[in-house]
């Protein structure tokens, strides 16, 4: 896929005359899955990104062109497309990357060729830990960031014993691992853990029976996409929600597909960095603009794209003109966005943002998210990341 759509936005208003008068041509490569299991996520991120450029592009003072490439969520394809964006299209900056596998595959390439990459989804901890790079800035989340504070919060609610279930792959292990660390540090006990074969599990029944027999106060899970829908429905069908409430990383009941889960999702409590019902002016404006453009509410994926675009325009507005200066400027990005106070931690280049605990409840127009608590923003530990300080 290679729609080269030109979004030419020039510094028009005289009030911005303090900016450098010369408009640069900045080319952004959007590397997203448009086919395969993550196609819906790719489309949501692109919609958010385009909305962000539309809204904040005129602050950048440059003409911004977007080139899109389909990563198919396959690491080899993602890497080949990244090489094409860097070497042939000569883009100034890349944004996107949904799957952690793709991020792991392209990491050395973007680091070696010194092309800034704004990560708009993939959450593997290493990308801003041991594998961090001054050229990789993450505007989405990290697996540990979303889950760690939830451990303490749940223990504070009086939950003592938890059973965890997650798919058996890197992201599942990191999400659950961070939750377990937070929960046990607060004094809780993990009474059992199950790992299901990733994307090969049709029936969660065997695992649910084990969770039920474990005597836990609550079950904490991480699932996303199709697996999340199956899991939530099957959990409800066994009637377990009443006895053992279901908690999880917020992708479990993402606004993108919560309607497919239906009543089964009601009462599930989860932690996430964004839900469409966050109460602030920035979010109200974002939700309104996104809904007007796309006819549906924005999800956390859309906000990744939107904030990635905003971070880029802020870097450009600060005077960045090429790959090197954009990468440096991205490390100092900070703004009040739909997710609240959002900034980049220059020590790891990971985003720092509040985490929202929300419950899925029935509203007037279907299922909606009721924010129960806002957990304060916390920078991830460096986790082996050693980078030169931003210059």
């Amino acid at each position, binding site marked *: 896929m290679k729609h080269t759509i030109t979004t030419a936005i020039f510094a028009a208003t005289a009030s911005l005359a303090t900016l450098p008068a010369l408009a640069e041509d900045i080319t952004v490569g959007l590397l997203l899955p448009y*086919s*395969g*299991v993550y*196609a*819906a996520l790719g*489309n949501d991120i692109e919609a958010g990104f385009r909305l962000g450029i539309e809204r904040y592009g005129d602050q950048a003072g440059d003409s911004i062109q977007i080139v899109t490439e389909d990563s198919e969520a396959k690491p080899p394809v993602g890497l080949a497309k990244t090489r094409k964006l860097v070497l042939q299209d000569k883009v100034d900056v890349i944004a996107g990357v949904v799957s952690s596998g793709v991020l792991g595959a392209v990491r050395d390439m973007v680091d070696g060729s010194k092309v800034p990459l704004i990560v708009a989804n993939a959450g593997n901890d290493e990308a801003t830990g041991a594998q961090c790079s001054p050229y990789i800035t993450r505007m989405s989340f990290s697996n540990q960031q979303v889950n760690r504070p939830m451990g303490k919060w749940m223990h504070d609610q009086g939950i003592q014993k938890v059973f965890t279930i997650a798919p058996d792959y890197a992201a599942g292990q990191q999400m659950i691992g961070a939750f377990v660390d937070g929960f046990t540090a607060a004094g809780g006990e993990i009474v*059992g853990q*199950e*790992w*299901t*074969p990733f*994307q*090969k*599990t*049709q*029936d969660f*029944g*065997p*695992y649910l*029976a*084990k969770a*039920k*027999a*474990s*005597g836990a106060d609550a079950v904490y899970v991480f699932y996303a*996409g*199709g*697996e*999340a*829908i*199956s899991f939530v*429905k*099957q959990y409800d*069908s*066994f*009637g377990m929600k009443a006895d053992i409430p279901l908690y999880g990383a917020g992708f479990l009941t993402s606004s*993108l*597909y919560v*309607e*497919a*889960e*239906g*009543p089964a999702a009601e009462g599930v409590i989860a932690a996430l960095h964004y839900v469409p019902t966050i109460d602030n002016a920035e979010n109200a404006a974002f939700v309104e603009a996104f809904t007007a453009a796309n006819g549906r509410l924005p999800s956390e994926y859309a906000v990744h794209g939107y904030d990635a675009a905003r971070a880029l325009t802020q870097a450009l507005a600060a005077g960045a003109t090429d790959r090197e200066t954009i990468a440096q400027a991205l490390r100092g990005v900070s703004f009040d966005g739909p997710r609240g106070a959002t900034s980049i931690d220059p020590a790891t280049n990971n985003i720092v943002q509040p985490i929202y605990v929300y419950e899925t409840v029935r509203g007037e127009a279907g299922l909606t998210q009721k924010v129960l608590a806002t957990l304060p923003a916390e920078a991830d530990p460096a986790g082996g990341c050693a980078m030169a300080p931003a210059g």
Partner: protein
Amino acid sequence: MSQDLGFWAVQTLNALQLSMLLFLLSIGLTVIFGLMHFVNLAHGSLYAFGAYVAASVASVAGFWAGFIAAPIAVAVLGLVLYVTLIKRMRRSGPMPQVLITFGLIFALLDLTRIIWGDLALGIEVPAILSGRVSVLGVEYPAYRLFIIALGAAIYAGLASVLARTQIGAMIRAGVDNDAMASCLGINVERLFFLVFCMGCALAGLAGAVAAPLLSVTPDMGLQILIPTLIVIVIGGLGSLKGAIAGSLIYGFVQTFGAALAPQLSSILIYALLAAVLVTRPTGLFPAKG
């Protein structure tokens, strides 16, 4: 972890439920193979198509409307495929037919994406089946019991049709030796057509049954294809007995594997398949000795 009798009862029911879902899928595939000697790789895609039809109809007219519409819609699709593609390829051997169905996997995958989009769909279990039933002292979802009962009923129905009716005798004759059956005055072509459409309808029914349990996604057909193939190959191609035996083996190995040896559960079933094929190269209950 305390694992009492109730725990094992639930796991047994889970295994039966998975087995019956796979049985609905594999019976159509295996009888089509028995008669026509080719494996319809697009069977999983037909199942996905059935799930989408069920989800769309159910959102307007309720679960049972979708439950009835899905097999009919998939049978019609099967009819179209048979008339336009399969029938013309009848004489060109099994490999080209397998490849046509491989092409259909690709085409149907993208067609469902174009028609229904990339977002997952879901439908609700009908009110009458949404509760739980007490079995051996444990609560078990009524909908899952419904799947077990439906699978058992369809098995019983097919078994009696095959064993006692004239059409059943014709199908058995066709599986045994289609040339001879044709000489005896059986319209084998019409039999093929009938069986193919029936197999498709059952795939559609499986899709409708699975839709409230799982999520309806474009790749659900690809996900179910390999388990279904494993079932019919372990059981032996072409026989009803093979399909039910293979389904039960798969369901129990998968469920109890997940309960007892979760680390091995993803490899276990493949190892079993390899072991069966090494010791009995045509499966456990092949249609022809």
